């Protein structure tokens, strides 16, 4: 049987891959996808804690409801973020982060 540590490690590795994608990739769309991956990795550890921390032998559903809310907020975030990317592309004709350096110090 998989232990809680296995699930936490899987979620942590997925989070680390997403973090690496955010820092190494330079296409803004792929950076945004990596952000979504980090968000889902956090969801996995929440659900794992909920399944392993039974209350009197019963499952505690609060964590699952929290994950449900996170997924809803993430969907709204994706819609707004992609709209920002589209209007950015309209203004600059690029999605490459190194060409978008107006705010750079």
């Amino acid at each position, binding site marked *: 049987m998989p*232990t809680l540590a296995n699930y936490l490690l899987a979620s942590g590795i997925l989070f680390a891959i997403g973090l690496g994608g955010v820092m190494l990739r330079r296409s803004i769309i792929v950076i945004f996808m*990596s952000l*979504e*991956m980090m968000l889902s990795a956090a969801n996995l550890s929440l*659900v794992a804690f909920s399944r392993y921390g039974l209350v009197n032998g019963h499952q505690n559903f*609060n964590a699952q409801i929290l994950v449900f809310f996170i997924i809803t907020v993430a969907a709204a975030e994706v819609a707004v973020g992609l709209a920002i990317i*589209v209007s950015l592309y309209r203004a600059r004709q690029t999605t490459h982060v190194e060409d978008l350096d107006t705010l750079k110090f």
Partner: protein
Amino acid sequence: MLTVAFWFFATLMIAFGASVVLLRNPVSCAMSLVMSFISLAALFITLDAAFIGIIQILVYAGAVMVLFLFIIMLLDLRTEESRSLNIGATVGGLLVVSAFIAFLVKIISSTPAFSQKLPDFVGPQTSEVKMIGFTLFQTFWLPFEVVGVLLLVATVGVVVLSRKSLR
């Protein structure tokens, strides 16, 4: 059975997650991310969270990734031309990621509570659908309503952002 399912889907999830970061074509990245999310949904189902698993497939692998593919095709993004690697960013990124994984392994292996086996349910169980309904609409009814308002605000915001001229 559960062990095999866990290792199979965890490997699949991490392999496709890595290919999101490593592949150059944005469409391949998006398809890898879909596969990664489907494997993640399977992991949710091994944790007896079928509701979250189905929501994950419907919302993430379905709606969100279709939106991503739609934007990739709308902006007509091609395979990234390879530019010279920014050495500082690459080394720094790899350093931060490996330090993160090292600390994670250290903390998880040094906490005995994390090595517990999957506990069995005790006594008669109320069905999952019923319990999720009760929790969502009785305990968390206010956040549920607030999320509805948030989705409305996001919809209006997207419409305003997509207009030709921002005033």
